[in-house]
């Protein structure tokens, strides 16, 4: 680490453990400033990591996953499923006789599982009281900043199939 330190006539240990108490105030301040600079560096690394991740292109192929049969779920009922991978929980809600909506179940705040509150007709996260609209997954209230990623559904031969995830990372 010798390049990081200004050239000095005294060795590092003499600088860090000074004989004069007046100098000790400088040592503690310099060490604290060094710590702050390291914190700043680590945050810059964080931003660069996000940049690196954003330039990676995810493969554009989405799997087609059957979720439920068209008449299986009652109106106002709920089915949970996994899409696109086995560890991505999603929630399907039948909002009316003809309409089904599906969203990722991970709350965009801190990933607690959201549930459908029929009385209020909205998706609720119990952890920190975040509320999402059932129409488009946008945030109604609470700490979440982002809308819930939506799962695009297709009705084929009486089957509801998840075909794509919208609004999330990809």
């Amino acid at each position: 680490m010798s390049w990081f330190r200004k050239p000095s006539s005294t060795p590092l240990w003499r600088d860090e453990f000074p004989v004069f108490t007046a100098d000790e105030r400088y040592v503690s301040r310099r060490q604290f400033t060094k710590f702050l600079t390291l914190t700043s560096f680590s945050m810059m690394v964080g931003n660069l990591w996000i940049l690196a991740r954003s330039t990676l292109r995810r493969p554009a192929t989405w799997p087609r996953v059957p979720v439920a049969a068209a008449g299986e779920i009652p109106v106002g009922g709920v089915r949970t499923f996994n899409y696109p991978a086995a560890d991505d929980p999603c929630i399907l809600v039948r909002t009316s006789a003809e309409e089904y909506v599906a969203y990722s179940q991970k709350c965009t705040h801190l990933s607690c599982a959201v549930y459908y509150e029929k009385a209020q007709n909205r998706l609720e996260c119990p952890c920190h009281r975040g509320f999402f609209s059932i129409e488009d997954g946008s945030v109604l209230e609470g700490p979440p900043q982002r809308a819930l990623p939506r799962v695009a559904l297709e009705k084929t031969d009486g089957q509801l199939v998840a075909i794509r995830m919208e609004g999330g990372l990809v």
Partner: protein
Amino acid sequence: MNAKPPQNRGLTAIDGAMVLIIVLLMVQIWLLSATLETYLAGHREAALPGAIISAILFAACLALYRFVDRLDSQVRRG
């Protein structure tokens, strides 16, 4: 002539530099969280300006640290 006078002169400048660094750090924290939220929402285009500004903030922090270091070796005995 005998007792060295207390080296208080440089301390004020160093304290000022530290406060400035802390302010820059708070901005950088906010920037990181905002960039992360934007990226997770799918808007990849925010990543590049976020990284550039974060790098600028870090460069400013580094410059202030080097200033403190220079002041430290100037004022101290040696």
